[in-house]
């Protein structure tokens, strides 16, 4: 929805001092001609206006609230919510408190953002690279994808995908069955998953161990390269470790391969994992819309590295994989990462549109809370606080990254 431009603050761009003439104490200028004093007056006036307007609005609000008998404060958080939430990552029932309902909402927002961001980055990168392909057909199709999806409001896209689910897709009895174990109907998407087995937990632990091992391997390889100049094939070894560890655990655990395949029972499917139409539509709309922007960012990032860099690296005798790894990517990523982070933040903020198609994200739950308690100010303040927290977290990361990735110039 939004394209954010994040520009690091630079003191150099600020207007320099203009008060060269009035600085000397001897010159006898009236106070309204002395820029320093005038600045103080301006600031005091501006602050006074803001405070007065704020006070005026605040007192009006208090009077209005009192007249309409609306409670204030966050006491409602501990009361019973008495509404159901469609889907939840943690156990929740209508008898739980508002606080827990809101927590369910936050978790749902995080869930859709997390999955959405991963899919967006993957699809966006692929489309961005396709746009630069020498294959005319592929490049034009990527161009069309980018142009069309960028220019259609994300809310319309959400409605469209949601409509596809409830208008076009058949009922579970005639569910579409594109590949084995996947069923698409107007009740959502159902797909088969491996039957739960104790080995899976062990595999998860093995994967985490592998991640840690890769981290230390990379550090060691970098150190060795700095010292001796010899390059260790980090990527290939990491891949083997990341896949090998869990696979080995799986084989040791007796290789349980039983699948939990969804079956039609009565009016709906049992078994497998069920993705609700709301979630699927929301994810689809957000991912397609944002990936168009990400594709443009990736394209611009790759194009920003001049051809001479590749040629120079090849002249130095680096192999193509090393050229990509050591020369192109570090430079392209410096251009790509900041706007990419903004797009991720945009996706998170746009997930608030879930309220329009009935997915219980944070805004949607908060909206229900507002309708039930009538405490609009607290509800909207909560919405703002949560999103502000996410965005401040992102900007903190960005500042850290900019600091780290800054070109060190002589």
């Amino acid at each position: 929805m939004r394209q954010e431009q994040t520009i690091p603050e630079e003191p150099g761009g600020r207007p320099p001092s203009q008060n060269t003439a009035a600085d000397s104490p001897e010159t006898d200028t009236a106070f309204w001609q002395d820029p320093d004093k005038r600045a103080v007056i301006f600031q005091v006036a501006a602050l006074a206006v803001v405070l007065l307007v704020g006070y005026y609005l605040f007192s009006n609000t208090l009077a209005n609230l009192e007249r309409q008998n609306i409670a204030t404060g966050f006491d409602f958080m501990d009361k019973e919510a008495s509404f159901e939430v469609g889907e939840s990552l943690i156990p929740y029932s209508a008898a739980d408190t508002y606080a827990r309902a809101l927590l369910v909402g936050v978790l749902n927002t995080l869930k859709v953002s997390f999955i959405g961001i991963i899919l967006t980055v993957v699809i966006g990168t692929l489309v961005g690279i396709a746009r630069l392909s020498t294959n005319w057909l592929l490049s034009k199709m990527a161009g069309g994808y980018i142009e069309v999806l960028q220019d259609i409001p994300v809310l319309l896209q959400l409605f469209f995908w949601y409509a596809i689910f409830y208008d076009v897709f058949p009922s579970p009895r005639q569910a579409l069955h594109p590949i084995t174990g996947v069923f698409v109907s107007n009740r959502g998407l159902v797909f088969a998953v491996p039957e739960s087995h104790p080995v899976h937990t062990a595999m998860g632990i093995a994967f985490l161990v592998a991640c840690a091992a890769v981290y230390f391997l990379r550090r060691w390889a970098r150190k060795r390269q700095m010292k001796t100049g010899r390059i260790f094939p980090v990527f290939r070894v990491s891949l083997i470790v990341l896949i090998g560890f869990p696979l080995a655990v799986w084989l040791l655990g007796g290789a349980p391969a039983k699948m939990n395949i969804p079956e039609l029972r009565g009016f709906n499917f049992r078994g497998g994992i069920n993705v609700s139409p709301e979630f699927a539509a929301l994810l689809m709309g957000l991912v397609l819309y944002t990936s168009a922007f990400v594709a443009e960012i990736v394209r611009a990032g790759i194009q920003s590295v001049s051809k001479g860099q590749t040629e120079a690296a090849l002249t130095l005798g680096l192999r193509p994989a090393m050229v990509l790894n050591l020369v192109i990517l570090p430079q392209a990523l410096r251009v790509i990462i900041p706007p990419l982070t903004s797009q991720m933040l945009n996706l998170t903020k746009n997930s608030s549109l879930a309220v329009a198609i009935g997915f219980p994200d944070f805004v949607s739950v908060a909206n229900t809370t507002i309708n039930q308690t009538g405490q609009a100010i607290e509800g909207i303040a909560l919405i703002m606080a949560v999103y502000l927290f996410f965005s401040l977290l992102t900007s903190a990361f960005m500042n850290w990254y900019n600091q780290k990735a800054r070109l060190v110039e002589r």
Partner: protein
Amino acid sequence: MTDTTHFTRPEPETDEIKPPVTQVGVIGWIKANLFNTWYNSVLTLAVLFALWQLAPPLVEWAFLDSRWYTDSEACRTTDGACWSIIPNNIRFILFGFYPPSEQWRPLLAVILLVALLFISRNRRFWRKPLAYAWMGGLVVMGILMRGGILGLDPVESSQWGGLPLTLMLSVFGLTAAYPLGVVLALGRQSRMPAIKSLCVIYIELIRGVPLISLLFMSAVIFPLFLPEGITINKILRAQVAIILFTAAYVAEVVRGGLQAIPKGQYEAADSLGLNYFQTMRLIILPQALKIVIPPTVSVLISAFKDTSLVVIIALYDILKTTQSTLSNPKWMGYSTEAYLFLAVVYFICCFFMSTFSRKLERELAT
């Protein structure tokens, strides 16, 4: 050979050698652009296969089996698209609850607006008369929409809807947000700490929250801010929310432009003896605003698309009118067609804006 042809070139022994067929013409182009390497060949074939699988059913659905100007009954007899939903409901989709007998007025207002926008595309007309034309145009549009004078029946703003509402929210939103954004950007660059921190807080606060929360605020909280007895209509409140939101984004873009101006420009302005306002108006802003035309236009395009969010606070913009059409039992189930139509409308508008931005960028290149 005879003597008379002495001064002419001898006939070539062989025919002129043409470049191989595989290098020029259609075949050459196909070879160079689609089959230049083995993986490109594979990709091309894969894409062609996908198109061959997808395109025929789509064409069949959208064109061959579709109904265009029929009633809803005729649509039930086909598997194809029912585009009839658009012509049958076009008046409601475009104008919402505006009284049908008066709908020529919003139509005229929209035509006037589009004409003004079209004239403004050309930079040769960027003079004072155009500004007067805009002011006059906006007043005429207001009169047309609202009525109440010149023998026009008054129409309450709660009856406004559809395309005029979308365009009004966008045009007023953008024109008001732009100067506000520039002021905020200047404030953020200011040397006065109080002004600077006020602007920073405002910009970061607004950019950190979704537009939807501001729209909720305008719909639910804003009435609480006002003293008893004073009410502001819903459209205006949403408009204010959109302006405040867009301004923060414009401000960030303009800041980028301000930071790109070299220090020497400020020093030159100082040495000419210009004061702050003269420096900004004559030296800094003309350069800074020009640099940031492309990102500004993308902010404006976003703002245009974002006006669709007013659906959530139940304003009848073009998206909401389309949705209400779909809740009519006669037309239920044809949402794909209706939303595709709307997507085309939005696409045309946004595409128009982005082409204009590219054109402007080319013209202003120095």
